[in-house]
């Protein structure tokens, strides 16, 4: 189950952040998203570690924390999509499709420009 979705602009400014839990741990999820921004920067600036995935937009699993998994997607315009999920046996391809659907929906609605 996806518990949190966040869209972060190119200056690491939050553009959209939404958590889908009934409990009061929205702040914890915001903190997890904030930490994942560093991981994204590290993946992008470290070409030796990324290897063949250097120019890939979908960054895959960023890091696991507690019982959550955090996935990342970086567009050409440095907009980051962060997805926090509690699913244990989720495949990369499924998450990639989810994020593509999110983006398609975003681009047909007007959200504040990242600039």
């Amino acid at each position, binding site marked *: 189950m996806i518990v949190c979705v966040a869209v972060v602009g190119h200056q690491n400014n939050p553009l959209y952040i939404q958590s889908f839990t009934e409990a009061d741990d929205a702040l914890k999820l915001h903190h997890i998203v904030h930490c994942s921004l560093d991981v994204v920067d590290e993946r992008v600036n470290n070409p030796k570690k990324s290897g063949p995935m250097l120019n*890939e*937009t979908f960054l895959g699993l960023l890091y696991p924390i507690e019982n959550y998994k955090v996935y990342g997607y*970086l*567009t*050409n*315009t440095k907009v980051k999509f962060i997805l926090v999920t509690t699913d244990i046996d989720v495949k990369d391809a499924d998450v990639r499709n989810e994020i593509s659907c999110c983006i398609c929906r975003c*681009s047909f609605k007007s959200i504040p*420009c*990242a*600039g």
Partner: protein
Amino acid sequence: MVREVSESCVDSLMTEMVACYCNRFYANKPELAARRIEAIGYQVGQQLSERYTMERPRFGDHLEAIKFICKDFWSEVFKKQIDNLKTNHRGTFVLQDNKFPWLARMSVDPSTDNVSSVEDYSAPTAESKAAQAMSMHLYFPCGIIRGALSNLGIPCAVSADISSLPACSFVVRIKA
């Protein structure tokens, strides 16, 4: 469903926008009109680049981003590609379009040819007025290129140069 707009509408909108800003809003201040038009182009370029780079893999370096502008971006906006790309490999690129669509239907006033040899010194001003009027129409595409490149993380300055209608070239200088 994709919404579409006719090309002639876009052409008319561009012409009217330049005329409006130059003759009405900033009537005697061409520099301010130019800056305003360029700023509109900047915002449009940012949003267009966001839309057109959605499914592409990320760019490795500046040259790839400029090639994207020359090929995919230009064909999405103008239905044709940039005809010639030159670079000095030190951050300056020249994008040449041999038949720029927004200038293709423009004509130069032929009355500038009927000047006697005595008044030769006034001929340059008439020609330079035509050149200035023409260049006002190029601020918008310059803004589009600048907006697209800065949204891709490449701050730059873009200027246009018309030596022969309807060909024009855009000079992109990347800020180090």
